[in-house]
């Protein structure tokens, strides 16, 4: 079996008294689309910068394809980065930007121009080589940054929130392009984002970061369906957390459980699902594809429910407030966040 593309062991990084990365162990396979997801300040970007070599770790090792590169300078590492602010050189044309890496490697003028032009055509910016980066739109700059990083054919591409500055439509389009690019290049992508939807839709595997540690590591489905901690359950998508007295009353078991809003159904009277709890509708939010309903349970918990199909008349949303309902769900939809308690209540 070949060595993983990236292998991190006991990685720590302190800035003064602040611990940005607090002991990260991670293996990323070759050709994997790997996302590091977390809120700002969770250490995900620092891990990326450590892999790129822009920062030196306080402790721990970094291996690239089995080779220890912990103290190797960035210009000697076979990885390339797409920066959050794109970091295009303002004094160079688009073509010169893309050719920069080839130029510093000593490639001849004609050959590097040829390869840079190909790379630009690969991101559908064929006719833009002579322009300055300042004359391009945000999405175009993003694609130039991609071309500049991939023209060197790195084994690993690092992407630091590359879509963060784009508007929603463009972001969705770029997500598709990124996925296609990764498939066609067949190289490892390490993608840093705070957007959980982006991480879930793009990745083969996701690491959820919190406070400088990996909170959970797994496929998008594992992360979403089986969160292992309260943080993951509430950061990745929305979860209702049932705990303490409420859990004891509703489920008959003490412990902490996560319940996704789309797993809950509302009805006027119990329909015979595993669990039922009565309450009053406090708020109805229209979402277009469905609606989010906030229910004040009699047990003392506020429950968020997501209805995708419009079971009730949409026009009567406002009138629903104050209506008595029964919220129901199945036992298999409950995820135990407390390892001490068995999954099935």
């Amino acid at each position, binding site marked *: 079996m070949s060595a993983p593309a990236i292998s991190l062991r006991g990685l720590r990084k302190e800035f003064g008294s602040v611990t940005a990365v607090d002991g990260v162990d991670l293996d990323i396979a070759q050709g994997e689309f790997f996302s590091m997801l977390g809120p700002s300040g969770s250490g995900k970007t620092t891990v990326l910068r450590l892999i*790129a*070599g*822009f920062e030196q770790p306080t402790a721990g090792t970094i291996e690239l394809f089995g080779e220890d590169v912990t103290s190797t*300078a*960035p*210009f000697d590492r076979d*990885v*390339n*980065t797409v*920066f*959050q*602010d794109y*970091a*295009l*050189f*303002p*004094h160079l044309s688009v073509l010169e930007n893309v050719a*920069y*890496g080839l*130029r*510093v*490697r000593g490639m001849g003028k004609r050959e590097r121009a040829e390869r840079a032009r190909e790379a630009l055509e690969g991101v559908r910016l064929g006719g833009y080589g002579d322009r300055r980066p300042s004359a391009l739109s945000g999405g175009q700059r993003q694609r130039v940054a991609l071309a*500049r*990083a991939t023209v*060197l054919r790195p084994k690993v591409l690092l992407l630091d929130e590359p879509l963060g500055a784009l508007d929603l439509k463009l972001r969705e389009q770029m997500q598709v392009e990124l996925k296609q690019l990764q498939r066609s290049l067949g190289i490892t992508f390490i993608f840093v984002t705070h957007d959980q939807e982006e991480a879930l839709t793009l990745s083969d595997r996701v690491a959820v970061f919190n406070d400088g540690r990996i909170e959970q590591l797994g496929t998008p489905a594992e992360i979403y369906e089986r969160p292992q901690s309260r943080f993951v359950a509430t950061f990745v998508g929305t979860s209702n957390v049932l705990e303490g007295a409420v859990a004891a009353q509703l489920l008959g078991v003490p412990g902490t459980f996560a319940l996704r809003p789309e797993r809950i159904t509302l009805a006027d009277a119990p329909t015979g699902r595993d669990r039922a709890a009565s309450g009053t509708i406090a708020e109805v939010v229209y979402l277009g594809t469905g609606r989010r309903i906030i229910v004040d349970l009699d047990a003392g918990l506020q429950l968020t429910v997501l209805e995708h199909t419009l079971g009730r008349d949409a026009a009567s949303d406002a009138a629903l407030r104050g209506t008595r309902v029964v919220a129901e769900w199945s036992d298999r939809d409950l995820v135990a966040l407390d390892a001490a308690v068995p999954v099935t209540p």
Partner: protein
Amino acid sequence: MSATTSTRRHSVSAFLFEHARLRLALLLTAPLFWLGLVYIVALAALLVTAFWTVDSFTGEVRIEWTLDNIVTVLTASVYQSVTLRTVGIALLVTVIDILLALPIAFFMAKVAGPRLQRALVIAVLTPLWASYLVKAYSWRTVLSPEGLFAWLVEPIGGSSPGYGIPATVITLSYLWLPYVILPIYAGLERVPDSLLDASSDLGAKPWRTVRSVVLPLLYPAVIAGSIFSFSLTLGDYIAVSIVGGANQMLGNLVYTNVGTANNLPLAAAAALIPIAIIMVYLAAVRRTGALDNL
């Protein structure tokens, strides 16, 4: 009804809002008058005086048009050699200041932490608070045969350069260094760190990054700094008379012509030389395109 009250309440603001030209006139009349008087009129007076002459009996300036002063300044060997020496010193001071300022500014802008950065900016600015004369005379002390400089280099077999052109270059480099550091520091502050990271990420070693990314982006700032050190040196005559021994610069010729020789027209003609040189310098800089990005 309500419209009239509100109009009345803001009558002055509303009036000015409607009369954009009047607004502009009120804003700019005083500074433009000052600029016109100080810069244009004074410079024009200098230019005109250079074409007048001095009555050899009374010593008074006579309004009698002549090119004699210009011819003297251009052909007399003393003016030629002093001009060459002054330009040489100005170029040397500029090069030394740029070479010193680049690493200092880079350290301040990109390496130092926020606290050290603030301390360094203050340290660079502090000498500007001290009197020019105090600083020039302290260099005279440092460079004297028994001074600090001699004491420092004697163990390695060196000796003080004494008072002369090297001492002048050292003193002027010291005096104008802050004026070169500050624009370069400001220019570096505007270069995002991510550009340096990107260059390194794409395989450029540090020196390559400096050459291909930092210096091209800093070019306008370096030029701005060089204009300060170059033009300030061209006009200087005090430092050279304190540490320069018997050497003279253009400023000294102007000074003696106004004072001892009492020949204001010739002094004005001599003063045109540095103006002409700095214009040539600016034109040369413009041709390189460095000012396009300012």
